[in-house]
């Protein structure tokens, strides 16, 4: 159980990140994608195709090249969509912001907060 002081400090960092231009831009880009029926449908189709192919591969099936090509074509189409490109670009900037903040934490602690936190969440 976290102390109240730790909870407040973590919340303050979260709020400061939320207010940063990079996160605001990303959240807007994410909302734009979610509001566009074409994007939502394309992403849903891509995910369903990915899960189906992965499932078959994990069951030992050798996937035909033609089906992999169809998947890659859809993936390319999805990533070329202007709204998705905007969202991807915004996320790349969020990652840079977050990596800078993780560096601050690393300097204070002498340990990689991100790596340890991710191990703990598995």
């Amino acid at each position: 159980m976290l102390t109240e002081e730790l909870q407040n400090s973590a919340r303050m960092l979260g709020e400061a990140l939320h207010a940063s231009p990079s996160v605001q831009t990303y959240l807007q880009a994410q909302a734009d994608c979610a509001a566009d029926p074409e994007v939502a449908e394309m992403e849903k189709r891509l995910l369903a195709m990915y899960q189906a192919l992965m499932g078959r591969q994990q069951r030992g099936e050798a996937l035909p090249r033609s089906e992999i090509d169809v998947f890659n074509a859809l993936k390319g189409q999805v990533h070329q969509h202007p709204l998705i490109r905007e969202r991807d670009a915004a996320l790349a900037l969020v990652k840079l912001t977050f990596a800078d903040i993780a560096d601050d934490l690393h300097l204070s602690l002498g340990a990689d907060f991100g790596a340890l936190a991710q191990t703990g969440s598995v």
Partner: protein
Amino acid sequence: MIIQTPITTSTELETEADQAARELGELLLHTPEYQAFVKALNAVNNNPAIQKISAEIRSHKNALRWSREEAGEHEAALSRLETELEALLVAQGYPPAEAAVCRLFAEVDTIISQAGVPFAANAKRSGCGCGS
């Protein structure tokens, strides 16, 4: 009457986040979990037997990376050394100390991430430097 909206620049916001991160880092630094982790880590780093085994493991892994010759022997040695290493780490109390600090950091990460985007999962620089 003119109401002036305070303008917050990008630099100010980043400074706010930087400052919040440093304060959080200071708090985490003094938690019992983190102190126990550092103690166990130092014990591991200063244990000659652990360092020797770690060096041997690296050597076998390098051998496997560059050549498949005598791969079976390297793999058998790796398996034996990893078991030995695990036993030594347990003796130093490292695994529970690491697990406790990972749990603590994961809880903190959950709170930071409530602001909208998962923090730890995205706090990574890409290899190519373009941020993608």
